[in-house]
């Protein structure tokens, strides 16, 4: 029976090719626009470390200007970063299972005796747990040891991309590399890793690629490195030397901890509060005690990683899909009613309402399937167009990388949603045509 309905559907669709093309086109366009906007929305709002959402916490403390909140729009929320001294003091706690303090810098890497041009790379100064905490994959080698952080030892982890540029992709563990003309030894090569958004540092955009080079945090003082991300201050301070800068109220360090259970969470929170109270008693912070441990999902919300533009676009995409579906319903209805005399004959010859309904539903299914397939192809083209819109410089493809990294789940979700919506939209015309009394159409014309 299904085969016969399918044959009927194709025959009917071929009868009005213009109308059929219009319907399929409307479904395809609606699906394409939805696939595109939902993919973008997911890329910007997904939690890229959801499997560790219960144990990872961003550490923030409110040591900001006593007169003014850090965020105009979100009073009461502490700043995203810590001062150098606060970060070091809290990092000394051994309560967390894992912990890290870090910031971003820029450096020039070069290799002695090799005919490769020096390369400017974004560099993360961090502590050894960075890779284990965020489940960063390694191609070769691994992280550095505890002692390397404080030494600091001249050790470095580089990305797979840089390894390919400088060493042709060979296992470079143990090789030497110069960073701002200081010799480092490679201990690990990070495999491709693209957390979207880059939740661990939301200071300078969240669709950037992760840094290509990682060196121990202790090199800050040894090489007097300033942050290449945001440094924010509120207090007028006379800063003459790097040491003055480290001791200042400027915030520029990010901190994360891994607390596996409620007990360690409670102990660490108490430790933080205790530290802040001590600082207050020493006369430093007139602000209210406001220490926070924030999970990754809440962290992305607090920092407004999803822009308002993005929300508006998702709303627009659904309005668009709604119009496309209304259009399809209207056209299907018109088409079915146009064909009502034939349906009348079929009813008169003994077809039940249910059979008429099913027959028309198969026709709807054909339209939805072709529309969805075309919509997917069109969505892929639109996504390519989107990438082109975001590429201003072909050599600097960080933002583009992010959008190139379309995950299958979001496409499948959008597609399934749109397909089901189209079928649902087709239910009414199919039902309506089944309700028509056959006699009225057998009489006239």
């Amino acid at each position, binding site marked *: 029976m299904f085969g016969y309905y399918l044959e009927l559907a194709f025959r009917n669709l071929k009868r009005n090719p213009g109308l059929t093309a219009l319907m399929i086109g409307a479904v395809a366009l609606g699906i394409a626009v939805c696939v595109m906007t939902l993919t973008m929305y997911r890329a910007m709002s997904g939690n890229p470390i959801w499997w560790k959402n219960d144990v990872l916490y961003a550490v923030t403390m409110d040591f900001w200007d006593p007169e003014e909140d850090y965020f105009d729009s979100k009073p009461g929320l502490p700043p995203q970063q810590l001062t150098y001294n606060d970060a070091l003091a809290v990092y000394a706690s051994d309560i967390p299972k894992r912990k890290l303090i870090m910031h971003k810098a820029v450096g020039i890497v070069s290799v002695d005796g090799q005919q490769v041009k020096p390369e400017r790379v974004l560099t993360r100064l961090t502590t050894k747990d960075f890779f284990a905490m965020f489940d960063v994959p390694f191609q070769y080698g691994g992280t550095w040891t505890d002692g390397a952080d404080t030494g600091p030892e001249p050790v470095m982890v580089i990305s797979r991309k840089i390894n390919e540029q400088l060493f042709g992709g060979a296992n470079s563990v143990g090789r030497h590399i110069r960073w701002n003309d200081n010799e480092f030894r490679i201990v690990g090569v990070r495999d491709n890793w693209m957390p979207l958004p880059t939740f661990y540092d939301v200071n300078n955009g969240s669709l950037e690629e992760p840094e290509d080079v990682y060196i121990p945090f202790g090199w800050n003082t040894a090489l007097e490195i300033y942050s290449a991300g945001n440094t924010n201050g509120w207090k007028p301070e006379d800063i003459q030397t790097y040491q003055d800068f480290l001791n200042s109220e400027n915030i520029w360090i990010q901190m994360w901890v891994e607390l596996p259970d409620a007990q360690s969470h409670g102990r660490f929170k108490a430790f933080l509060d205790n530290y802040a109270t001590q600082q207050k008693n020493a006369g430093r912070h007139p602000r209210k005690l406001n220490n926070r441990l924030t999970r990754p999902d809440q962290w992305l919300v607090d920092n407004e990683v999803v822009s308002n533009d993005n929300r508006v*676009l998702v709303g627009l995409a659904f*309005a*668009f899909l709604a119009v496309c579906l*209304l*259009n399809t319903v209207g*056209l299907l209805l*018109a088409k079915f009613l146009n064909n009502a005399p034939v349906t009348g004959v079929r009813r008169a010859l003994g077809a039940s309402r249910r059979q008429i309904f099913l027959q028309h539903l198969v026709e709807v299914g054909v339209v939805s399937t072709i529309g969805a397939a075309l919509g997917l192809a069109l969505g892929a083209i639109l996504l390519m167009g989107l990438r082109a819109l975001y590429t201003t410089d072909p050599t600097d493809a960080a933002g583009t990388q992010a959008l190139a990294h379309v995950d299958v789940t979001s496409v499948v979700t959008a597609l399934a949603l749109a397909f089901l919506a189209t079928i649902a939209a087709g239910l009414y015309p199919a039902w309506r045509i089944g309700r028509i009394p056959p006699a009225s159409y057998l009489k006239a014309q």
Partner: protein
Amino acid sequence: MTAWNIRPIASALWRNRTGAMLVAFQIAIGLAVLVNAVYVVKQRVDKIGRPTGMDTANMIWVSSAGFAKDFDHDASWRQDLAAIRAIPGVKAASIISNIPLSGSGSSSGFQAKPGEATPDETVAGNTYLVDEQAIAALGVTLSSGRPFEPQEILPPIETFDSSPQAIVTKAFAKELFPDDLNPVGKSFYDGLGKPIAIVGIIEHMHGAWVGWDRLDNVVLFPRIDNGPGTIYLVRSEPGRRDGVMRDIEAKLGDSNPGRLLRWVRPMDYFINQSYLDDRNMAIFLVSVTGALLAITALGIFGLATFNVSTRIRQIGTRRAVGARRMDIVRHFLVENWMVTTAGVVAGCGGALAIGYWISVKYELPRLDLFYLVGGVLAIWVIGLAAALQPARRASTISPAVASRTV
């Protein structure tokens, strides 16, 4: 019965209301989206088109990064600037700490009087360290005062510090001294209470962050930026920008093995980058809204075509009893106009609701009713245009059709 036959048209419509309601619903969504999309796009286009105050068409930025241990910043920038200034077609060149409109920069708080200041008395400004050619290289207009003299330029220092002199924008000066129209020679103060004398006022100039409400507050300090990373600003003679860029790359590319010439870029690069999201949002809105209206128009067209094709005999009958072709066209256009208007009425409510949501989200003023009126007129025109072809086809139906099957 009026000449427009409103009642019979309405009752005919009511008998086949499902299709008409579907189209009216599409029109309602179309109007709500159209009105708000035009409103948001207008905001973005205005934002992107703001005057920058600078000669952006002829500005070039050069980034050099010293990395060798024996890299000599002082010798390097002197050499580079001398080489750049010797290139034919270069009007002026300056060493500058950051690039305006690039989304990267420094800002500080200043005050009109020394001593403790409340947040309300603190005036924020985008700060730049520049040399004596900066005013000429930026292409900004001094409304009063003078540029920096070569002997006023201070040597680099490691940390963030103000200087005893500054050139500031009019917007910044006005916020500091609301009552003084020409405060050249007056002093303002940094957070540590150090005085800064104003030597010149810039008519208008943009700072670092296009989304910041203090974008027009700029403070230039006469100081050489510290190394080893350096940015040079070059202004070419009108129309010679691209040639000058090639010459800079050729001259500076391999002149010093202890540094990397990172890039030479036109000012447009940074402006485009800063407004990328606004531009893309405008493009998305225009294309999706355009597609949405096109689909809606096709829906109107489809409904009208269907209505014509199911009433061929009735049309023939009307023609046979004396209706002119004009009457048939008018019948379908009026019928269509009724559907459109029902959609428009519903859409007005939707447009205002979405407009309210957007004004809250973006902290924008409430949707201007002018946009709503414009949107309604546009939808009426689109609706009539979409129904015109089916209506005219209906009018060509021969009166003979009426008698054929009887």
